[in-house]
């Protein structure tokens, strides 16, 4: 009974149409049938749940988008399953064919869903509230007020004017109203409120499309790159300036503005007060000098975690830091083969760092070193060195050395943090006679066989930067906010219809009947009934009483012992 009153919207139609299983004949008919299926609520639900399931593998397997090296390693370690998983795109879940298919279908369904609903809503918003039902007493919440003859005479009321006054009361309460039967002895008011609920729902769904489009545009026209800067060094925003760079598919290098960043100093503070968290980092601050372009004035800026610096259309983030020991390598001929800070990659909270040093210019043989840098070196009972503190209280290098072909000359890109020892001969190692190289600051170690020497000159810090440009991120933010607002409106605004009927009584009084109907979930419909009853009663100064409104609907004691919020909830089953 409530159902017939619901304006034709997707909500109503989708559910019922989905049950009509047999498609009309012919190609067009089949297409139409497929479209109806796709845009049905059931399909939307199915696709939503499918999307949730499909997103899970991306958290179980390493993803190339996050860290390609880990994926490569995973495949190497799992030669049987790895390639199969790869074939199913389980290392690229969020750009995979199947994941894309699900969300594209979902969004097509969404568009197919939203357009007719937007149209229906537009029509509903412009049409007058629905016609007055014959028997208001059949509505879930209803009641009657009697204006006594004396009052009618005093105020010179007619059913029409009473209806007009009721309409005014309702209008003040936010209803759209329409007065019917003016001039007759049986007037009525049709009223409706809460169209914003449907509007909110539409805004929400449309905004989801907006977010998706913004994400796509960001992916097409944005870029990001990574750069490590040692104290005192600079970075210029050009392609060659980056350590690694990920352009969007529509990126062109003239998008890059040639600003520059110099790292003047990097301050680190660790917790020194608390035993339980001794050495936990408390603050990272990078002091930068930036220049918007060549010749532009220099500017001092502070970069912190969670506080990016924006420059030249990009945002610059502090995503990592560590130590760069300054090392001098001399070759077998006594010449300096490499000199300067070498970035060591921290592997734990105490900054025990992996370090790789390559000296391709060394003569007669190229030299390579791999090992650890320990900020506060300490040797345990078994003779194993480890770091006890993240601050450099006793900095030490522990290295193995190699000579031979570093494999850098054939031009293939090489990971600077990895030493490929395949074509190298070991010189020093903890496992061979010469032992490993252990160096404190200022010390030099002469390599065996006169291959050269290595000196640990000093220590600098470096920072790792992520640099991002996303032209659509503001749009994504706006749409996300709209979605949230729309969602709130959709879930919290109640859509209600209300009718008031006025008729003349035999004794000269006027009878005012009213009835309320909710569309969708509305547990406060009965409350609204009481409130409107009170407003109307006050308008004509008649006692509002308590009974009428709930009397007829009131569920008998045995089933329910209270009126109030009980009744209207059953309407939900009509959705």
């Amino acid at each position, binding site marked *: 009974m409530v159902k017939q009153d619901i304006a034709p919207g997707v909500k109503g139609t989708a559910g019922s149409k989905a*049950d009509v299983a047999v498609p009309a004949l012919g190609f067009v008919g089949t297409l139409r049938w497929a479209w109806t299926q796709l845009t049905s*609520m*059931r399909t*939307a*639900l199915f696709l*939503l*749940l499918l999307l*949730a399931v499909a*997103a899970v593998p991306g*958290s179980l397997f390493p993803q190339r*988008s*996050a860290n390609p090296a880990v994926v490569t390693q995973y495949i190497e370690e799992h030669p049987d399953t790895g390639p199969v998983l790869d074939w199913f795109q389980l290392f690229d879940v969020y750009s995979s064919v199947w994941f894309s298919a699900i969300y594209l279908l979902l969004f097509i369904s969404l568009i197919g869903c939203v357009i007719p609903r937007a149209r229906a809503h537009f029509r509903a918003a412009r049409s007058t509230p629905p016609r007055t039902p014959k028997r208001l*007493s059949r509505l*879930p919440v209803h009641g009657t007020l009697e204006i006594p003859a004396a009052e009618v005479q005093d105020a010179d009321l007619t059913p029409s004017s009473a209806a007009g006054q009721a309409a005014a009361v309702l209008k003040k309460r936010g209803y759209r109203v329409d007065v019917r039967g003016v001039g007759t002895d049986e007037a009525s008011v049709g009223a409706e409120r809460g169209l914003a609920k449907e509007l909110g729902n539409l805004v929400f769904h449309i905004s989801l499309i907006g977010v998706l489009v913004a*994400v796509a545009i960001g992916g097409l026209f944005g870029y990001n790159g990574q750069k490590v800067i040692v104290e005192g060094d600079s970075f210029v925003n050009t392609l060659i300036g980056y350590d690694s760079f990920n352009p969007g598919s529509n990126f062109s290098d003239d998008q890059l503005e040639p600003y520059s960043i110099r790292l003047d100093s990097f301050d680190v503070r660790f*917790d020194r*007060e*608390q035993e*339980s*968290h001794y050495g936990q980092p*408390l*603050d*990272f601050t990078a002091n930068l000098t930036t220049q918007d372009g060549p010749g532009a004035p220099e500017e001092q800026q502070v970069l912190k*975690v*969670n506080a*990016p610096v924006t420059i030249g259309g990009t*945002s610059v*983030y502090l*995503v990592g830091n560590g130590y760069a020991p300054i090392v001098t390598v001399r070759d077998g001929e006594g010449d300096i083969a490499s000199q300067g800070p070498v970035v060591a990659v921290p592997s734990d909270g105490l900054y025990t760092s992996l370090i790789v040093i390559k000296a391709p210019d060394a003569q007669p043989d190229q030299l390579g070193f791999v090992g650890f840098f320990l900020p506060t070196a300490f040797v345990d009972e078994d003779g194993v060195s480890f770091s006890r503190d993240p601050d450099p209280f006793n900095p030490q290098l522990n290295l193995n050395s190699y000579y031979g072909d570093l494999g850098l000359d054939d031009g293939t890109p090489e990971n600077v943090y990895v030493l490929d020892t395949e074509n190298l001969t070991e010189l020093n190692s903890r496992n061979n006679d010469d032992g490993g190289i252990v160096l404190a600051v200022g010390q030099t170690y002469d390599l065996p066989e006169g291959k050269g020497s290595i000196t640990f000159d000093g220590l600098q810090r470096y920072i790792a930067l*992520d*640099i*991002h440009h*996303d032209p659509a*991120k503001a749009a*994504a*933010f706006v749409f996300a*906010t709209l979605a*949230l607002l729309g*969602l709130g409106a959709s*879930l*919290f605004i109640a859509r209600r219809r209300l009718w008031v009927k006025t008729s003349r009584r035999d004794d000269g009084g006027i009878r005012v009947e009213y009835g309320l109907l909710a569309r969708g*979930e509305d*547990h406060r419909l009965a409350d609204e009934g009481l409130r409107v009853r009170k407003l109307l009663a006050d308008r004509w100064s008649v006692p509002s009483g308590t009974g009428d409104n709930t009397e*007829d*609907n009131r*569920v*008998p*004691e*045995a*089933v*329910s*012992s*209270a009126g*109030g*919020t*009980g009744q209207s*909830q059953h309407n*939900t*089953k009509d*959705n």
Partner: protein
Amino acid sequence: MPQPVNAELGQVSELLMLLASIAYVVAFVFFVLDLVKSSKTISAVESRLASEQAASARTLAHVGGRDPGSTAARPAAPVTADDSMDYGSGARRGSARIAVALTVLAALIHGAAVVSRAFAAHRVPWGNMYEFCTTGAFLVAVIFLITLTRKDLRFIGSFVVGLVVIMLCAATVGFPTPVSRLIPALQSYWLVVHVSIAVASSALFTITFAMSVLQLLQTSREAKLLAGKTDTARFLRLVPSALSLENLSYRLNAIAFIGWTFTLIAGAIWAEQAWGRYWGWDTKEVWTFVIWTVYAGYLHARATRGWTGTRAAWLSIVGYLCIVFNFTIVNMYFSGLHSYAGV
């Protein structure tokens, strides 16, 4: 320059947390006692109900306009609580009263523990797993108590308080963490916004989870009774009908879903500030998304024919299991940018 932490106050907080747990445990015992006892009380009330049954049948026929489906599908006699969750029997539930009083007491101590922890650390008390758990449990208790003032939800008391106890145990046993300052990655006001709403939404989801489980139990019981079988789950007499449970949990889920949507957006904004991209399918982001999608599915299910009732309840349960998974397994065993668990 932030102030150093106050270790003594931190210890006071831990002691209060312990006291609160004890009070919750006792409250839990009383809630269980209430369920057991009420079964008896209800048997007594039942005769009265039966006598009124005839009258109600008449009136129902008269009213006619109420949703015929649900009224017919629901045998009036064995169900004692309805949508309003106003039990009407007038029977005194002594144990339940004690249980609620104890829960209030426990929540007060719990609140003091959370606040003193915040003061000890000079920051919001949600910077590691221990704090997520204890603050989250506090919110669960508070939301439960607030809901109690509007609806008689004492029937899920044992459930909810039981979950609070589990959360507190998990915090104290699983992730004990002394008071400390925040690592740089967490030093952001987005921690306040993002995590607080996440914890509050999760607390709401916790309550609806309990209600959905009861709803499933009640549904199968109702079906059984309708088929004329004996009532094997008598304690459920105190629990409202499956339909009322569904309606109420829908309302709470709707609020929680908005909270979760906000969490997701705020998280994206924070991620944008911290890492330069608002969305990168990091493990934690994946699971936040999965949870969001499951609950969006739940909301859709409620508007899809054939998916209301039992299936919707299952979705609500699955959503909650995802939250638990996200909070425990993902935090502890999955690596990702969000490795702040502090364990």
